[in-house]
């Protein structure tokens, strides 16, 4: 049905309803004129009028509804196109931004391979430099991805893509990505899930990947010796717990951990690059997926030296399909 015929439908509805109303109002006169001197016809005419009014109203309301829905869909489409355009630009931007990094990274990996082939001992400084270049790659990946998600979060009409997801595989991939970095920082990064056969969940896989990546990235930045990722499940939820044995977060700061732009006040410690975006994005994405992200921390001050730690617990529904909700 096109817009024109919808408008006509709406008008016809209104006209029928008007006729009905008119019949009710005029029923005394019509009844009177049909059988002069008797009141018998007045009532049936009024009833018929009421029926016609109801019919007309229904038609008009349906017309209105369809038009309203269509307008909404149209404006909705427009925002999606806008978002698509932004994403498209961003895609081009990320590709072009990545080009120099891909070249640097490629050269570094070639250099490493060539140095290995010579069989000679590579100077410590050189190894350090190569490692630094290699380890900045995941940083860059996360940064680009964070900005992209940030753009996406601004779009209210966007919704999570629900698909069957192997959550254990996601944790495994994140762990694999961060294991070399952790090793270089002298950290032990481990993960496991209980039960071991975790099975599939229904959720937004790339959002899950992104949230866990941000949590692990954060933990690897502040841990002193250990990072643990543990997955468990209950009847309706699955939980990912990311634990580190860093100095912890003072209680007064805990409430601000997920604020945009918040970074720990650790100016006394050496440079720790942190944009203050990661945890904000992690918690916003989690919320959008209908889950929860909470933080617990035992801070360093006052307690025994091994009693400090920080735990982020992500809980998400096992089945996030809208039909089942």
């Amino acid at each position, binding site marked *: 049905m096109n817009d024109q015929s919808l408008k006509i439908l709406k008008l016809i509805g209104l006209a029928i309803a008007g006729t009905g109303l008119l019949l009710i109002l005029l029923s005394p006169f019509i009844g009177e004129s049909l059988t002069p001197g008797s009141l018998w016809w007045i009532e049936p005419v009024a009833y018929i009028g009421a029926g016609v009014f109801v019919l007309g109203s229904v038609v008009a309301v349906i017309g209105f509804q369809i038009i309203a829905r269509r307008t909404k869909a149209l404006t909705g489409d427009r925002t999606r196109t806008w978002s*698509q355009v932004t*994403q*498209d630009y961003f*895609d081009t931007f*990320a*590709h072009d931004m*990545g080009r120099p*990094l*891909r*070249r640097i*990274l*490629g*050269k570094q*990996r*070639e250099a490493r*391979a060539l140095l290995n082939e010579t069989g000679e001992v590579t100077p410590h400084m050189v190894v350090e430099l190569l490692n630094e270049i*290699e380890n900045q*790659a*995941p940083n*860059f*990946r996360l940064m*680009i*991805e964070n900005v*992209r*998600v940030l753009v*996406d979060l601004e779009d209210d009409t966007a919704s999570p*893509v629900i*698909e069957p997801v192997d959550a254990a*595989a996601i944790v*495994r*991939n994140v*762990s*694999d*990505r961060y*294991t*070399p970095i952790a090793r270089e920082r002298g950290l*032990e*990064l*481990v*993960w*496991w899930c*209980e*039960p*071991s056969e975790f099975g599939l969940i229904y959720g937004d896989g*790339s*959002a899950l*990947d*992104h949230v866990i990546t941000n949590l692990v990235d954060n933990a690897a930045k502040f841990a002193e010796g*250990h990072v*643990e990722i*543990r997955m468990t499940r209950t009847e309706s939820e699955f939980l990912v717990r990311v634990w580190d044995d860093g100095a912890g977060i003072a209680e007064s700061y805990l409430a601000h951990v997920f604020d945009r732009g918040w970074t720990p006040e650790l100016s006394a410690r050496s440079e720790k690059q942190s944009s203050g975006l990661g945890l904000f994005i992690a918690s916003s994405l989690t919320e959008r997926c209908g889950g929860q992200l909470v933080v617990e921390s035992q801070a360093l001050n006052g307690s025994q030296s091994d009693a400090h730690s920080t735990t982020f617990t992500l809980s998400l529904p096992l089945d996030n399909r809208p039909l089942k909700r």
Partner: protein
Amino acid sequence: MTSKSAGRGQKILVVDDEHMSDLMRSVLRRLETDGFRPIVVAPEGPHLTGEDYETQALFALETERPSAVLLDVRFGEYDSDRFKGLSILKKIVERDSSMPVLMFTQYTQGPYRDTAVNASLSVSVSVDFIDKLASPEEVVLRLRRLIGRAPETIKIGTLFEIDAANAAVYVIENERRDLIREIQGMKLEILSELASAMYRSEGELVPFSRLERFSDGEDSRASLRVRIRELKVSLGRAVSREFGANELIINVRNRGYRLVNPRD
């Protein structure tokens, strides 16, 4: 773990217009050191487009019968070829829905990831996505998992080899394999469990809950600890070494155990 046997000569079809770049060369080199046989699709001509790669890739799929495909999303800088990889993916899947395909993306999320998921993912298709910046180790690891067959034997560093099918542990010395007779039954099962976790992912820990069946008595952790110690002693004796608390099999903060490659 980087033994030649890991890839067992499996062919990997590489479809990427940047296959000559340093980044891809390091991936190709890594595939070779891990025992895979990369087959690079490289059409010839003055003005190559995504179309040329598609034609040749589909041809190579028929003639080479690879075990998996490594496929880039983007071909060239033309706008029309920006998502060419997706159309190639679709055609590969149409021809062979069981073919494992690992796709290179700019980043893990994003429009083409969703498009790829929607366009290609019927139930049985095994497609995975990896960032183009990922390390060669990560690429090979992901590919290995996508192909999915667990190996018959798992090597622990260069010292030991576990043959789960034949329930045997060997010590490797100068290319020779000698059976370690001491390690059998439950000890072997524990070792296999730890070794397969390590094979799946370096950081994977085997939690106590999964090891409890190998223990008995009132204090199950203590009995497990004893078994692990015996295991370490047996393995150490075979190579005339003594493995310390932070070597070979380590107890991670009382969560569980994990196998690490021993130093040579």
